[in-house]
């Protein structure tokens, strides 16, 4: 049932892009944090790609909040793209969207620079 979690970093024009796959729950913590560290090894904002994520639960939201808290402390801008309509709504309800810009896709995120 659980599709596992994966995080991979690629590099865009203005910073690291963390591509997530599978399930974002409590177990995604270490993977997301180390991907964040890798993505912040160079200057620029960090974008999180949720395009291949099929499930996010409250413990996953807590993991994302943890990363946002760290980014905030480090003065690092974080954005997200690839969210389904439902999770976009969840990010708005939880106000995560107030602290990370939400884009439709990677192109829209790049265009927003």
């Amino acid at each position, binding site marked *: *049932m659980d599709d596992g979690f994966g995080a991979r970093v690629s590099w865009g024009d203005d910073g690291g892009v963390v591509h997530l796959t599978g399930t974002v729950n409590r177990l995604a913590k270490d993977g997301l944090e180390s991907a964040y560290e890798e993505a912040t090894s160079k200057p620029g904002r960090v974008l999180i790609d949720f395009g291949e994520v099929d499930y996010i639960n409250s413990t996953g939201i807590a993991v994302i909040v943890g990363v946002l808290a760290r980014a905030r402390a480090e003065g690092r801008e974080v954005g997200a793209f690839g969210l389904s309509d439902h999770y976009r709504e969840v990010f708005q309800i939880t106000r995560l969207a107030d602290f990370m810009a939400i884009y439709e896709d990677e192109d829209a995120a790049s265009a927003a620079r």
Partner: protein
Amino acid sequence: MVQLLRRRKTEEAPSEAPETSLSPGTRVIDAVPIPPGDPLETALLSTGAPLELASVEFESEALQTMRERGVELIVPLIGQGELLGALYLGPRLSDQPYSTDDRHLLGSLASQVAPAMKVAQLVREQQAEAKERERIQQELQVAALIQQTLLPKELPAIPGWHVDAFYRPARAVGGDFYDFINLEDGRLGVVIGDVTDKGVPAALVMATCRSMLRAAAQRHNSPSAVLADVNEALVPEIPPAMFVTCLYAIIDTNEGEIVLANAGHNLPYVRSSGGVVELRATGMPLGLMPGMPYDERTYRLERGDVMVLTSDGITEAHNVEGEMYGFGRLKGRVAIRPSNDDMVAALVGDLESFTGADAEQEDDITLVVVRRTASAKESAETFRSGDAEVLARFSVPSEEGNERIAITKVSEAVGHLGLEEARLERLKTAVGETVMNAIEHGNENRAEIPVEIEVRATAASVSVRVSDQGGDKVIPEAETPDIEAKLAGEQTPRGWGLFLIGQMVDEIKTESNDKIHTVELVMNREGVS
């Protein structure tokens, strides 16, 4: 010339003589076990000192063998009053007798060796015990896995009927099972059984018996023929001294008629407007003897009637005074119509108040309750009249991640209702979070305790009821998480679950008794998105 004999437990394999390099002229004396109760044991324990065989005035088989092997001196190794072993010495190389000094030296050596041997013995015993405990634990886990894998994952959802089941394994996992078999023409086969014995053997017999019952149920229309068939098949397969009690009932869900046969299982009770009756049908347990006949009993359930099938884990449960729960009390409890018509909760609650909530469960407890809620005509009209219809009932083991199973099943159950996509997604998230809470907080991640889920629909709404066994726990109010505080590190990043649930559905209802906690999520089928 010295052979150290470690006293070993009878089940241990004899140790071979140690391979040592010996000086010329020396030889190893083969160890001679001293049987418990041998006069030599008594003599060694009473003196606690080296004993010269020449001076021994009694005779015993062990002594005789020692003399034949050339033993002259035995130095007992005694720890805590127990003969742990002995040093056997043959003649000195000088052919001189052992001197007083020799004996003192050997006695002193023995007094130092004995405690070390005792410690080694205790360590070995503890290791063996730990290994045995681990083996038993693994076996119980395998048995529980077999059993739980084969029990129905869902309850039958039949218009006009309410079918409920409860299964709680004892720590040592007995062989209880139940099953529902869908048959042609709106008939439902209901099985409840109990394999004698516990653990893996019982679980394997249960698995075999279940398969045989399922196959026979498709071949025969009569419950007695099904049980007779299974009995014939089981007799040559079942281990000696094991057998299976089993009741098989076929319910015609259109007419309400029940036909049942019983292979030595607890009698079922039916509560109707005329009181409680036992449905008696005789027959020998399965697997004992070939060629057994099985009686059949027919009964018609009217609207409101309820049939209760039980395992002996209920009737044979004891309270602290050693009294048995018994058939009388069970029958008396079945006679009372419970609140919400929840017979399972009523019986389990009564059993727990009888045994005491903290009492260790002696045997598996299994309950199957079949209640006729409406005639076929009435049930066809139910949906239109606005009463809730059960779309699915199932349970998931309380293990992290199983909320995904619940989400999928709820999604499937409501699939045909045409719920708007956004509302369906919200319901799925709410179900996932509620089931996660039930798994983690209500049932404390104990896989053997299921989270029960029921999906109902009316013309106006869909509701999902999620029940756990945390009825005695205090449920915190959902608060709006303060994301600023969380981002500033002043609050834990967690704490989103209850908040999310509240945001996702139109209404949340909760109910608790001292055992069960239920959260009902209500989503209007049409409304403001």
